[in-house]
């Protein structure tokens, strides 16, 4: 099988709505200057420790796409979402929105982009202000981002948005604690929709909800995508949801992308050893737990990343090259991009 380096020739048509270019994020965990000091061989030295949350992620999100980022806890998927939204500053790398670099903008210059990009958080119990009525919660983004609306227009908009997410506008004067979890998540989706965004980062939006409510919220997100031509960056650990909701999927492991491609291709024909293990571990109705692929050991700490391929310690196909050289994300013949030496060398 031929694997080609990823060049501009292989890019889909048109500029991407969001492009993430070699993004790195490290969180310093060594504390203050004094806490960084160690005595080594009788001399004080300064040692810094950091969690390498993202290590060189390249991603492009096209208009109208629902790109799902999946991976286990600690793989950096939420950090990617927060970096795109500008909630954290990347250590290195660039984030572009419709061709314009946005990660280095000042708060004032960034303001118009905040209207175009909105975020839905995991836990609606924590993301809604308990002391604000639904009306006040929904009015706030409109006051900032659509000051041209007068009070009546704003109220009309609140009614329209509440209707569209299936929460009766009669309840606008109520507080979050008066709603169930599913309704609260609808309200936080309504808050994101108030400013008519083009792009939404949804960070585990249904993980905190019950099974019968998950379907309701997922339907709402899909309906919003159709009606408003939204683009999603959907972060989740639930692979069954990804298969249903996503158009493309990015599989992350220890801050690195290991596989990226169309949902359909990846779910039917996973290539990367990690993706295979991950997919085989989903508990499906009527399947045996014995059928899953066992991985050796555990996820290593992101403080001291493994050399070479970050997955090599747990991979049964790893050889010496995997231990020393990090694989690039190469395009395979069905358009899926995989970071694996074994696939590149036709060993897998």
């Amino acid at each position, binding site marked *: 099988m031929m694997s080609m380096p990823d060049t501009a020739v292989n890019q889909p048509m048109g500029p991407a709505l969001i492009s993430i270019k070699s993004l790195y994020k490290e969180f310093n965990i060594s504390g203050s200057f004094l806490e960084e000091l160690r005595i080594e061989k009788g001399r004080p030295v300064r040692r810094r420790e950091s969690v390498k949350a993202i290590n060189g992620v390249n991603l492009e999100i096209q208009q109208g796409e629902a790109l799902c980022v999946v991976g286990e806890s600690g793989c950096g998927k939420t950090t990617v979402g927060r970096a795109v939204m500008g909630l954290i500053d990347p250590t290195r790398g660039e984030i572009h929105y419709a061709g314009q670099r946005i990660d280095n903008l000042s708060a004032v210059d960034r303001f118009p982009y905040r209207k175009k990009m909105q975020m839905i958080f995991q836990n609606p119990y924590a993301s809604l202000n308990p002391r604000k009525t639904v009306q006040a919660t929904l009015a706030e983004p409109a006051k900032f981002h659509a000051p041209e609306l007068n009070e009546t227009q704003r109220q009309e908009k609140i009614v329209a948005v509440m209707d569209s997410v299936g929460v009766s506008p009669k309840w606008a004067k109520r507080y979050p604690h008066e709603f169930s979890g599913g309704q609260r998540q609808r309200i936080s989706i309504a808050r994101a929709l108030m400013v008519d965004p083009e792009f939404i980062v949804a960070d585990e939006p249904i993980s905190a909800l019950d*099974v019968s409510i998950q379907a309701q919220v*997922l339907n709402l997100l899909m309906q919003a995508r159709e009606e408003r031509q939204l683009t999603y960056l959907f972060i989740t650990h639930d692979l069954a949801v990804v298969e249903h909701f996503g158009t493309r999927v990015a599989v992350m492991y220890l801050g690195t992308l290991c596989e990226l491609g169309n949902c359909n291709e990846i779910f039917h024909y996973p290539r990367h050893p990690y993706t295979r293990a991950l997919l085989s571990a989903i508990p499906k109705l*009527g399947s045996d737990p014995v059928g*899953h692929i066992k991985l050796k050991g555990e996820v290593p700490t992101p403080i001291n990343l493994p050399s070479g391929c970050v997955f090599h310690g747990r991979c049964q196909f790893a050889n010496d090259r995997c231990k020393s050289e990090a694989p690039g994300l190469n395009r395979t013949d069905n358009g899926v991009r995989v970071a694996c030496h074994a696939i590149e060398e036709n060993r897998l």
Partner: protein
Amino acid sequence: MSLLQVNNLEVEFPLLSGKVKALKDISFSLDKGERIGIVGESGAGKSVTAFAILNLISKPGRITNGSIWFDGANLADMDRDQIRNIRGNKISMIFQDPMMTLNPVLTISTQMVECLQAHRNLPEAEAKKIAVEKLRAVQIPAPETRLDQYPHELSGGMRQRVVIAIALISDPALIIADEPTTALDVTIQAEILQLLLELCVNFNVGLILITHDLGVVSQVTQRTLVMYAGSIIEQGPTRELISSPLHPYTQGLIGALPEQTTPGSRLNQIPGVMPSLQDIPEGCAFHPRCTLAVAKCQHQIPELKGKTSRLCACHLVDDVDA
């Protein structure tokens, strides 16, 4: 003879605004070495059922009716000392979050030995030997060194393995696992489920697995109970129940899973939310959300009945049988 027999169990919590019946007329049995699953959404009463079996309902909540027969004795009638002899000895419990279950300031060894010595008069060295053996049974590498470590030194999956080892330590006849894998990642979840299944089969231990995940239940259990608003609404062999659910709620739950529809299409959703236990609708508790409800459903509470292996509490299903 069955290992555990729960008859007409009712649990009540008094509130300022009146009494809340968390469990209503729960009856089921479990044979020796059988694995059953209890499925339902949050607030359905799954965990209260598990807690009631071990008499762990915290005051002012209490068991108001019913009996729990285990090993020839009624657990619901036992006093504190008698039930302590059962807990962690003949029936053990595994909770959701292993970091909350394990004591962070004690070593694994201390916690395992303590549990053994509470029930058996064993010298320390002997108890440690058993602890190592159990850690090996849950496939923890280098169990001797792990014994002297603290919970924070282990990963989430390892911690849950330790919790399972503690549950196994006095060779119980029944393990109650309350959402044992909900806090874990999928790859770890698959390993823990496989381990639980193997242990139950190898040691002939009964299992009550409480979860909201139908996929998990279908992998591990032989029989499944579905709960809604404090009652069992359907019961049957797991495979059968999942392939041909009888109750409209079970049908809705299974139909709402993304894997049941083609990718990208609208999911089948159950309208509305589960009622609060404080104002459960009259008649069948599910009728306001049920698309098939008829007039009878609004007034009369359906009974859980049917053939011996399949039980269902729905007026419409009765009609089908007749």
